[in-house]
């Protein structure tokens, strides 16, 4: 009997390259958030400027699950730490987990899906990535971890904007959107941002998968349609290089991409589930995150799902409303995605 989502302690994951401003953001949260108590998990003591009662040192130990899959990794130390923290349950309202600069966010996220105790007591709220506006361009070239952290993020702070020109920031944003068009971006100085943009995001709550639209500043909810209709009525769209939309660029990255697919006809669940499970089993290491809203034949309820590498989580969400278009949309963010295979596979799931 698992507690309802609302009783679970939210966990915010702060990631970002060394020196980007994660600790500054963390200190802001701890000093500004009056009335809320945080347990903080850091990889090194002494970084936090504020006196916070509940600080735990993590050693970021990742282990591979024994199914032999290289991307199925879990932060074993997190499981232990959360277990220990939950013994002091009444003493904090939320957990902030700061990862090291080179950390891959995937094992952290997977831990919440994979461990039943962690999943029963806590919920992943959002992955917040802080990037240094001065160095991001270089990091994207030489550090795969930096790309991962961006691809994985729900919220991205482009920090130290006071140290670069507006044109450089525009270019950075384009580069970031090329990797992850779905994260909310904020330009910040000294990690200064309204904390409600960073905390209590419910980004992993299936109930919150209301629409899957890329977040283009000022055009939130704007449909991103490339007008490629073919005879079968399927609409496919994904990021084109250097495309202007709502006045904003997203520059194509050679390696890390997102792809979004839409199908108007209802799907057959007996075709869809084997297909998606097979896809993530085969391409798991390359697919960082995926999300979908599905319309199944003769099913009055929307089905929503999300995934991290090979791990999928989904459920019926609510009935389709009479005024809603019942189409199915899925989004993948990953590297070297076999786009045609995925496109054809998804198309084959039509009922």
């Amino acid at each position, binding site marked *: *009997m698992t507690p309802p989502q609302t009783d679970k302690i939210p966990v915010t994951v702060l990631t970002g390259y060394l020196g980007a401003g994660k600790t500054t953001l963390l200190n802001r949260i701890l000093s500004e958030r009056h009335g809320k108590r945080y347990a903080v998990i850091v990889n090194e003591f002494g970084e936090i400027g504020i006196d916070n009662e509940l600080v735990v*040192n993590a050693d970021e130990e990742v*282990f591979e*699950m024994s199914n032999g899959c290289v991307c199925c990794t879990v932060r*074993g130390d997190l499981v*232990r730490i959360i277990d*220990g923290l939950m*013994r*002091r*349950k009444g003493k904090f309202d939320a957990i902030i987990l700061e990862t090291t600069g080179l950390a891959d966010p995937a094992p952290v996220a997977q831990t919440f899906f994979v461990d039943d105790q962690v999943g029963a007591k806590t919920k992943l709220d959002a992955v917040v990535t802080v990037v240094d506006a001065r160095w991001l361009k270089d990091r994207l070239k030489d550090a795969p971890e930096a790309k991962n952290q961006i691809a994985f993020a729900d919220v991205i702070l482009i920090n130290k904007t006071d140290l670069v020109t507006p044109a450089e920031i525009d270019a950075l944003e384009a580069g970031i959107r090329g990797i992850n068009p779905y994260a909310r971006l904020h330009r910040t100085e000294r990690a200064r941002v309204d904390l409600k943009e960073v905390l209590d995001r419910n980004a992993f709550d299936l109930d919150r998968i209301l629409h899957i639209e890329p977040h283009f500043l000022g055009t939130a909810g704007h449909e991103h349609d490339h007008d490629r209709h073919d005879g079968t009525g399927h609409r496919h769209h994904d990021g084109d290089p250097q495309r202007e939309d709502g006045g904003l660029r997203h520059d194509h990255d050679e390696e890390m991409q997102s792809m979004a697919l839409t199908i108007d006809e209802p799907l057959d669940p007996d075709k869809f589930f084997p297909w998606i499970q097979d896809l993530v089993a085969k391409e798991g290491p390359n697919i960082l995150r995926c999300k979908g809203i599905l319309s199944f034949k003769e099913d009055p309820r929307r089905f929503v799902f999300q995934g991290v590498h090979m791990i999928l989580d989904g459920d019926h969400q609510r009935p389709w409303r009479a005024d809603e278009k019942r189409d199915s949309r899925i989004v993948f963010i990953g590297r070297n995605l076999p786009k045609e295979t995925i496109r054809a596979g998804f198309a084959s799931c039509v009922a």
Partner: protein
Amino acid sequence: MPSLADRVRAIDAGAMVVGVHFLGTAPVFVLGEEAVLFLSAGGSRRIAIHSGAILASEADGARLVTGGDDGRLVAVDAEGSHRVLAADGAGRWIDQVALGGNGAVAWSAGRVAHVLTAKGDERIFEAPSTVAGLAFAPKGFRVAIAHYNGATLWFPDAPAVPPARLDWKGSHLAVRFSPDGRFLVTAMQEPTLHGWRLADGQSMRMSGYATRVRSLSWTADGKFLATSGAERLVLWPFDGKAGPMGRAPRLVAVGDTHIVMVACHPRRPVAAVGTEDGTVALVRLDDGALIEARAGTASPVSALAWDATGGQLAFGCENGEAGLLSL
């Protein structure tokens, strides 16, 4: 189900109960934070022994030893007096504790496992990764250490003997020796048990669980390992040359809620089980007959233990409700 509810003294521990042990005939409830609770004639006595969460507890009838997130290892006796046995130099969490029959104590903080002998000698072993479980062998002065990708067998008094590694990929948590010392079992992060036959290092898997196995208990005759992790009580056979290898476990129906705690009676073929909804029941292993000791009130059972003779059963729940059954 017949009920023994009228033989249970209900107790309000006031905080999550993370362990329960008997010192002599007195139950001691270990709370998630700070303190242990002794019972008195009319009520209870709360004794603060840590300044933070209590992460591990073990007892041998004479003393209770606890490890806390304050980095301290504390021993408590039947009168409630307590003292610090050891402290981690860096204040790291002491989250594993084991007691040896000869008055020795093993504990760990991070990757380092310590053993303190009854005479006061300390030995240290650095594991390949964070220590997640400790157990003393039933015979001889040997300690099993669970960590990532396997377990290590360490002879604290024989530093010249290199510790033996037992390998298996994954995160190994709780570790137990079989009472006859022939097998070593670990509960893994994944919903499965793993084990090795110590004579030849042969690996064995015990799987099929719905959830992670958090509670293990050997039957009084040492022939079965009873575990939580399913709706039915799972009993793996450990008799014979091959132990559980190639054999299916016995599954005993208890109800339709997940079993989360198991404690076998010290003398008779009976097991106490605690479920996710707070029910405590006794199961007769021969024929599966059930008696309810306590009806669940929603909060999972989080601690369960018999006293040395099996005349009393103490239990505690996550929400602080607890009780003592006297047979």
